[in-house]
């Protein structure tokens, strides 16, 4: 855990120096459910606040493209996948717990 922390710190310093790095995010949902709408709203708010100007969000509706679920090993919905920067991170749920999402995206330290 300690090493992860230092790595994260190092990466953030690194990012600050050589920005802007584009964050590629992908949100998997199944149809226009309340939960998926909420998840997308939460994600947008969060990105605007923390990643303004350096993020791309792709929303994938698995009801339309079910075959895409396998590639990212999607089980639970909604799932947010951080494709970039590597390593891949996944956050499941409606993203209502902002603090948890930030930790999951490594925008904030755990604890």
């Amino acid at each position, binding site marked *: 855990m300690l090493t992860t922390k230092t790595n994260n710190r190092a990466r953030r310093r690194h990012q600050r120096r050589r920005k802007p790095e584009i964050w590629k995010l992908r949100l998997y949902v199944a149809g226009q459910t309340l939960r998926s709408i909420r998840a997308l709203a939460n994600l947008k708010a969060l990105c605007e606040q923390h990643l303004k100007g350096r993020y791309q969000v792709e929303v994938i509706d698995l009801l339309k493209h*079910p075959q895409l679920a396998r590639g990212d*090993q999607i*089980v639970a919905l909604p799932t947010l996948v951080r494709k970039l920067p590597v390593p891949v991170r996944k956050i*499941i*749920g409606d993203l*209502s717990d902002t603090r948890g999402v930030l930790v999951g995206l490594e925008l904030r330290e755990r604890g």
Partner: protein
Amino acid sequence: MAQNKKANNTSSRTLPKAPTGIQGLDEITWGGLPRGRPTLVSGTAGSGKTLLGLEFLVRGATQYNEPGVFMSFEEPVQDLAKNAASLGFDLDRLVAEKKLFLDHVFIERSQIEETGEYDLDGLFIRLADALQRVRARRVVLDTIEALFGELSNPGILRAEIRRLFSWLKKKRVTAVITAERDHPNGLTRHGLEEFVSDCVILLDHRIREEVSTRRLRIVKYRGSTHGTSEYPFLIDEHGISVLPISSLRLDHEAPAQRISSGIPDLDGMLGGKGFYQGSSVLISGSSGTGKTSIAAHLVEAACRRGERCLYFAFEESPRQIIRNMRSIGIDLEPAVRKGLLEFHAARPTYGGIEEHLTLAHKLVSRSQPRVVVVDPVTNLIVVGAQHEVRSMLTRLIDFLKARQITAIFTSLTVGGGPPEASEVAVSSLMDTWLLLQSIEVGGERNRRLYVLKSRGMRHSNQMREFVLTDHGLRLPDVYLGPEGVLTGSARLSQEVREKAADTVRRQALESRRRELERNRQIFEARLALLRAEFETEEEKIQQSISESELLREKLAQDRTLMVRSRKADSPSGSKEGRAPGPRAG
């Protein structure tokens, strides 16, 4: 769905079933798993859950035209294919033919963060997509409980799994859901049995005295009869086989070929040809009556014909059997050396009755014998209760019959009581029953044999004495005394008496024959004398005949000469006139 109805008119009227195609499993479930419903297969690690699921799908795809989806939560697809290949299943080909779809569901715990509400719709969508791709009728989820280790909210998981099962029912796919069992009281670690109420199968893998046995038990099967005991099962290169094999059905072949018992006299008692190939033979008798000897005869004869034999020795070691049989002139050694005869000796107590059955099954499958001897079958009773032994024997006999293997069981009867009663448990399963007795008459113990039953042939009803000689077993001719068949010295003395009487008769005959010969000689001598006399007479007469002939010729010549000397006469006159001869003139 029409398909559901159509496929099931053969099985029980209450519940449509989907045959698994797994050897033995369809027998004990009376037709298969509940069609269109989930079945829970629970078992400890390594008990064969995944393979059972795989075979269910492979058989479905290849034998019943029901494509399937395998959703693995543990093993990657490549590993599955590799494991399946060890059972002789080619998953890649089935996948290519769109008869099978494999999906590996995998959540990397360290990659994932849970925030707020979620559901498992992703899983549902993947499964729905997979089902639709191959038009699946069967699904295996192996092991969905793995999700509990990957996602932290058991409340959501349980609710979602419950929803998944009812979704599967709605989709009318026959599903196998595997679950891990980690302690002997519960069925599954996370209580999945709550959600699957139709059919629960428990797998078990035990190791006792270094012999591992897999067992299968149907804990519950709502709305259907099913076998309730623990059935041993095997996993080999042909997949899974649960061991009742065909014990609930009676549909073996009944070959008409006969197999010699190796004892010509005994063959004679069995309609002149011996046992039927593929029949089961019980040889029972008290200790020391020669059961093993009779079995050894058959084995030796079979090996001489080049047939393979498998000998389960539960009482004596193979070396001892070989030595003892040599003393009656049966040498089993060459057959062993040639690999035709294989002994398997074990203490009957080394394992449970299923272990014996499993082992027998394995060995028979491996060496493909024509004859199997279990000597003695009674020793197994030590291990199991009477009914267990019976059920095991039934399975074994069925298994051997299905392969048309002749089976010889020896059985030790305990003194007292009618011998027919003491083997009630097994005798009815046997086609032929030879009973050996030792009888005490005149201070001797002799052996007697008779064929108590032999289905499908005209067998002798006679009680025969048999003796073990240096040249094998022999059934001497029967001597009936006032108290039945004579044995031992009584027979011998009777034999001697009969021999003496026979000698007398033969001598009388001989002397008459000699007399006749003598008479013939005398008569012929007389005949020769008469002929000699006659020949002498004949000679005399012949001589006088030829003398008078000669005289006549001489006279004729003289007359001719005289005519020539009287030339004056016309030649014709000489012919006509009967001139008197010179001597007469």
